[in-house]
């Protein structure tokens, strides 16, 4: 792609080099650790599922039983129990839910455990590869039927069955991507609830059964509309890798998944997050799931002009963390947002500059572009115009995933008609300027070109300082989003476990091998 902004290749390269240096020591830390949710995710991949009478999920029951034995990896004990009891996976799950203790069963022959574990790895692999193949086949069958950028809308009723109605309606109206927003507290739960749920606040619980219900509902629409509908959820919070595991099994297509969001915006411990994000991303990579990163959050807490460089720096870091987990660029929905104050003179030019800059720096990434939210006021008429400008920038800079702005943002979670109005707005703008991107060049040394170059320079300067102090100290000092997060504070730290010399996780080994990762 030719550059319209005359961005310096050398400076972009320097930023990538810095990202690699910044992320590298964190990778060393990650390699030596596991967490309760990494172990539970592994158990889920092996088939652990269900819950006891109090609703405690089977993967949690197992991990809670293991305590200090967790340093050996939970799979050993799960597989050992399968062999010792002669049960099927379902049978063993039921027994554990009924109170069976598997931690104290004498450990059998290691070779036998490994043989059985490899069987489970194979059935996981077959299931996820089948999901991938199905998605790829449908995308090919209905090629050219999706809008570009992909039109992404949110449903958030709290009741999965109501979500289904809203999602099917939105997909019928032209949405390409349906995200089911999670209930507001879920990111801080250290377990994933079980079964279909009908109550949530500001969203719906992410559960494997809810995933399955929504997937089936959208697959109906896929056939009716002859268009693939991407299903999205949140592999974030304290159960990042478990949600990724569930998504891989139930064929979700996108996951919100950021390497630092939980640390900064949810006060989750940084060690915990770094370990969790890696395993979650390995699962996403293997399942062909597009991650959506959360850079828009930097701009809802800070100014979109002054702090534009924090977005680009975070994109470089997210990209590096993702590469380290085996994700190819085409699965990286790096985030950014249209969040400048609408009263700003020439604000539109700056938005255009930053969106085009992201496009040129990450040419293969399906960039996730977020709509105005912070400056939406309740004046729905103005909101509709703000959204139209956002739609224009997104199309003319070829963004990948376009989260539709709602004219009723800041008033309520979207009504059915709000989504329809938003979709009509976007389709109108996109169609009207379909080929405009190819017609546009920017004035050399004009406002737009200079703005983009300035943000890149600020980004490199910022990353140089982060490289000097190190990523973890930089986060402790509040260099990201002005939020200070000490490394030994935050939620979920007690779930961090140093891997023992006997640590065994054949799923992790399998994923590494498949993804071409070292070690």
């Amino acid at each position, binding site marked *: 792609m030719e550059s319209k902004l005359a961005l310096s290749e050398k400076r972009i390269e320097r930023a990538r080099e810095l990202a690699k240096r910044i992320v590298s020591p964190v990778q060393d830390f990650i390699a030596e650790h596991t967490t309760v949710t990494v172990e539970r995710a592994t158990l889920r991949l092996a088939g652990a599922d269900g819950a006891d009478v109090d609703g405690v999920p089977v993967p949690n029951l197992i991990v809670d039983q293991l305590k200090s034995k967790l340093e050996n990896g939970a799979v050993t004990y799960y597989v050992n129990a399968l062999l010792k009891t002669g049960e099927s996976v379902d049978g063993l799950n039921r027994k554990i839910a009924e109170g069976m203790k598997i931690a104290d069963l004498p450990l059998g022959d290691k070779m036998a455990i490994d043989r059985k574990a490899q069987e489970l790895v194979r059935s996981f692999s077959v299931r996820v590869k089948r999901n991938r193949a199905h998605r790829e086949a449908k995308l090919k069958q209905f090629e050219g039927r999706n809008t570009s950028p992909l039109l992404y809308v949110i449903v958030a009723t*709290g009741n999965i069955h109501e979500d289904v*109605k809203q999602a*099917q*309606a939105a997909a*019928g*109206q032209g949405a390409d991507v349906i995200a089911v927003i999670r209930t*507001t*507290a879920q*990111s*801080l739960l250290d377990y994933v609830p079980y079964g279909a749920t009908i109550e949530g*606040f*500001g969203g719906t619980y992410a559960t494997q059964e809810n995933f399955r219900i929504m997937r089936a509902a959208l697959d109906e629409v896929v056939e009716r509309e002859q268009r693939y509908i991407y299903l999205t959820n949140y592999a974030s919070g304290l159960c990042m890798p478990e949600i990724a595991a569930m998504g891989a099994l139930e064929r979700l297509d996108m996951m919100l998944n950021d390497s630092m969001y939980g640390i900064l*915006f*949810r*006060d989750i411990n940084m060690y915990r997050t770094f370990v969790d994000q890696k395993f979650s991303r390995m699962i996403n990579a293997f399942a062909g799931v597009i991650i959506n990163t959360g850079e828009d959050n930097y701009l*809802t*807490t*800070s*100014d979109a002009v002054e702090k534009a460089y924090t977005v680009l720096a975070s994109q470089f870091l997210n990209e590096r963390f993702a590469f380290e987990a085996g994700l190819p660029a085409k699965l990286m929905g790096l985030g950014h947002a249209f969040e400048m*104050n609408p*009263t700003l003179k020439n604000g539109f030019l700056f938005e255009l500059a930053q969106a085009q800059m992201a496009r040129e720096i990450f040419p293969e990434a399906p960039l996730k572009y977020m709509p105005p939210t*912070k*400056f939406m*006021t*309740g004046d729905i008429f103005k909101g509709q115009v703000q959204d139209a400008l956002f739609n224009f920038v997104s199309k003319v800079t070829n963004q990948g995933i376009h989260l539709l702005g709602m004219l009723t943002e*800041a*008033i309520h*979670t979207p*009504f*059915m*008609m709000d989504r*329809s*109005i938003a979709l009509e707005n976007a389709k109108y703008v996109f169609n009207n300027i379909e080929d405009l991107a190819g017609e546009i060049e920017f004035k050399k040394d004009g406002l737009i070109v200079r703005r983009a170059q300035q943000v890149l320079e600020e980004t490199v300067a910022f990353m140089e300082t982060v490289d000097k102090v190190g990523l973890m100290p930089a986060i402790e000092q509040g260099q990201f989003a002005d939020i200070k997060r000490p490394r030994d504070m935050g939620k979920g730290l007690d779930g961090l476990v140093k891997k023992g010399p006997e640590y065994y996780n054949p799923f992790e080994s399998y994923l590494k091998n498949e993804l071409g990762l070292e070690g």
Partner: protein
Amino acid sequence: MIIRPYGDTLDDGAVQLSFTLPVPDGPKGREAARLFVEKLGFKHTEITHSHALAEGFSFYVAYGKTETSIDFDTVRIKEATGDKVYSMDEACEVIKEKIGRKVVVVGACTGFDAHTVGIDAIMNMKGYNHHYGLERYSEIEAYNLGAQVPNEKLIDYAVKVKADAILISQIVTQKDVHIQNLVEFIELLQAKGLREKFIVCVGGSRIGNQLAVELGYDGGFGKGTYADHVATFIVDRVIEQKVAR
């Protein structure tokens, strides 16, 4: 003075509406929509647009004229602050002159609510829409505890820093989850015998002063509120308390 909505002629009572009906789009749906608008009391009703939203759902834009009126002179507002709102500098001047020490404010988004946007708009240095937040006020000591703060923790913190005022933000209001949380906070404060110790305010896009007062708060702040409004309310209340003592 008797008033009605104004379209292009005084007292024409013109109103625009839009809504969804759970029926298919078509002549019957449009007539149902028109009759519905008539039933609301509108005359000269017109459905200017309709389209299908999904199987069994349709969207309508409607216009009508109403004879309903309001006597403007009898209207009483229920805002926490009156017409006089201090600017940041004015507020700091008043604190220096009439209070003579820094005013301490603790704020948080409480319960399960994870949205800091409201409390940040009021408290963060940067503020919102060119209105600086309370952290910027030289005469205010502001502590923003962020989101998902338990009520108990917020109270403990307010006691620790000897706060004059506690600010609570509630953004998520689905199924009235905020009401429950707000009531619990006041009850907890009362149980500890601390209700009179603090000026307690709540804010959020769906919060009004009336609701706040009903729930036992001193003031409530909804849409269009900036730090200026909140600071004005707190400063005036602190002065009132000082005079009362």
